[in-house]
């Protein structure tokens, strides 16, 4: 797959072009109609069974059509094709505004981890059901006292025979209420020489006694994430990934998958992407001070700022494939900066999209006269889940400054 990553995009082969055409046609045919109820924009916003069923069904359909897990090995449920094929399909799905793949933790965190670091049995057991959304996964890294400081996780897993007994408190656990499994970071050895060395990584089942899942209400007023309490919950030792004490290394590998390495990804769009094109649609309906918003020079200037910045996002990804155009000494920049730049961009863009609405920007979703059903008001609040979750923007700055620029830790 390595050669695929460096191949310049312009040489898109006839095969890829044909695939692009095919998938576009398939999507046109198969994207489900508006179900008549509010749909989430990202996987962090699924708030009821109705939404979950709808999205699960869609993911299964995409998988069964051969458009998900395309580059994953056939023996575990994938289709064994080149990553470039999956990338083309993913792009087309985003372009077509298809509903997103709901099993995000499975596809982007658990799946790659199991494929790369799991045992043969684990691969056989879990991967296919991740792709088909038969089993939903959640992620158990954060704890109430350790939002950014994952290495300090205090949830305890004590070995007893063939089992581990888990006690602790995980939080901000997206989709835990629908999940059958959790990738769990827990402390097996509180006396390890350093805090990192005491951690172990598990593929924990959620349907065992002693696991309590509570909903957390988001600032939007909606639900979508949870806290998970473990009280003497027993999980089999066979769900451990790697050895005891290797959990930190596994977790770091997981985070690297999440931060945008395309290699090995199951593919699929992870959110309904809101772009400046949609802001423009909104702006065309909006009035500021009695005039169409798009006549306001302030709106026009800022709109173009966002359009320029937005273009840089896919262009950075393109440039990442052209070895010679990577900035010397900072070759990993386009990859490492993706999460920070994208999430902060969306925070500012969604705020702008509300701002330009003039007086009507004070309305919220649910109001029949809110422009575009308040999609931007909701996106604006939800945007913080990305600037905070998965490592806050402040932590991202540290990571990039230290790893990429070689600046010392503060």
């Amino acid at each position, binding site marked *: 797959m390595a050669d695929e990553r460096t191949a310049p995009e312009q040489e898109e082969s006839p095969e890829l072009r044909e695939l692009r055409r095919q998938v576009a046609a398939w999507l046109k045919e198969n994207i489900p109609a508006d179900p008549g109820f509010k749909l989430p924009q990202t996987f962090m916003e699924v708030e009821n069974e109705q939404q979950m069923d709808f999205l699960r069904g869609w993911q299964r359909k995409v998988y069964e059509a051969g458009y998900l897990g395309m580059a994953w090995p056939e023996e575990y449920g994938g289709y064994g094709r080149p990553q470039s094929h999956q990338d083309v399909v993913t792009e087309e799905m985003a372009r077509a505004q298809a509903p997103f793949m709901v099993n995000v933790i499975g596809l982007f965190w658990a799946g790659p981890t199991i494929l790369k670091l799991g045992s043969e049995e684990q691969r056989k057991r879990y991967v296919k059901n991740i792709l088909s959304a038969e089993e939903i996964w959640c992620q158990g890294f954060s704890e109430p006292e350790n939002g950014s400081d994952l290495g300090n996780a205090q949830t305890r897993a004590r070995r007893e025979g063939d089992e581990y007994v888990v006690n602790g408190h995980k939080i901000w656990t997206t989709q835990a209420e629908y999940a059958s499994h959790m990738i769990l970071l827990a402390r097996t050895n509180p006396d390890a020489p350093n805090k990192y060395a005491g951690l172990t990584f598990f593929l924990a089942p959620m349907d065992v006694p002693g696991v309590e899942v509570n909903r957390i209400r988001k*600032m939007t007023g909606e639900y979508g994430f949870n806290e998970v309490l473990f009280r003497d919950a027993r999980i089999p030792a066979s769900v451990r990934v790697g050895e005891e004490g290797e959990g930190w290394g596994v977790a770091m590998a997981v985070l690297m998958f999440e931060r945008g390495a395309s290699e090995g990804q199951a593919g699929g769009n992870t959110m309904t992407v809101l772009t400046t094109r949609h802001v423009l649609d909104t702006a065309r309906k909006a*009035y*500021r001070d*009695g005039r169409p918003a798009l006549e306001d020079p*302030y709106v026009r200037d800022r709109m173009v700022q966002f359009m320029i910045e937005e273009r840089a996002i896919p262009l950075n990804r393109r440039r990442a494939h052209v070895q010679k155009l990577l900035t010397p000494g900072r070759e990993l920049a386009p990859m490492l900066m993706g999460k920070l730049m994208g999430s902060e961009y969306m925070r500012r863009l969604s705020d702008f999209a509300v701002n330009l609405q003039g007086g009507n920007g*004070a309305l*919220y979703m*649910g109001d029949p*006269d809110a422009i575009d059903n308040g999609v931007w008001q909701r996106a604006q609040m939800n945007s913080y889940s990305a600037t905070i979750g998965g490592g806050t923007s402040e932590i991202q700055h*540290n990571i990039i400054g230290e790893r990429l620029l070689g600046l010392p830790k503060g």
Partner: protein
Amino acid sequence: MSEASFNIRYSDEQAMLADTAVSFLRSKSTFEHVRRYIGDAAGYDPDLWKEMADLGWLGIALPEEHAGAGLGAAELVSVCEPMGQYLMASPFLATTLAGQALLRAGSEEQKQAWLPRIASGEAIATLALSEPDGSWEPEGFAAKAETRGEGYRLSGTKTLVLDGQNADLVLIAVTLDGVPALLAAETERLAGRLRSEILVDETRRSARLDLDGLELPASARLEDHATDALRYVYSLAWLLLAAEQAGGANGVFDLTLDYVKTRKQFGKVIGGYQAIKHPMVDIMMEIENTRSLLYYAATVFDGPGGESGIAARMAKAYATDAFRHAADRSIQFHGAMGFTYECHAQLFFRRAQWARHSFGDAAHHRRHLADLML
């Protein structure tokens, strides 16, 4: 204006009102209390409203002859800033603005009928100003009134009528014979025409008002100077919203400051990290600037000359951005907790959003200021 002429006056009355408001609201308008009324249709506590009336707040800027205290806009600021700080939700803003419109354009009869009842807290009043096109200036109302027999027949739609669902009296801004006019409607006349809106700020209430076919008697018309009265009321709204925003910015800043002083990550209190400390300092400075611009605007508000509108617009423009910034960073610096409904930061965030979109955002006021000053 040269620097030397920038003055800030602050009277004993202002200080006393502010002290009272802070201690009253600190104990009454707690987060718990504010949240309790989120699910309430009226969105405010009638007992608290009564207490506010007893404190004299509803008559602050009404003349003594109408049972008011005979003070002015500056004294309203003294209570509005703490209201913002403690997220007070009530029809105070609506009623105060409507009271001033009545005072300035109403007939003697209308004033005597309503102002004492407003001052006593008995009547809630509001203005119907905004329209679907979101105009933020007191001119060019698309809503129309036409003479019809002895009275008027109205058409058009009003939006974002503050506390429209709570009001006893709605003053409706329309175009009549080509110029702005205000028509007073007791809410009984508006039955079936008011729809509660869903606002981003869940502590606020507003309504959409359908005017098509509404008929009002000749006596509904406020007797004169709707143009001047409206101009005054809009400026006053800028000033009082700036006060609320200043208070809100302070409130959310204090909330954040407490959090970053206690929350630890990586073994250190997070407020010690420059990535948090320095933005906190920037926000603090913006709040200081807001308060200076606000109290200057309050000082010159009831004075002569064009400075009043300029200063109020400046205060609203700057306060809007300062409050937004403070609320935005409050969510971020609270980390995952900040993203929950349970965290009080969202209350301020939503208030900041609502206030930005009410009576003109920063870019809007800067555009008008440019026309006034450049």
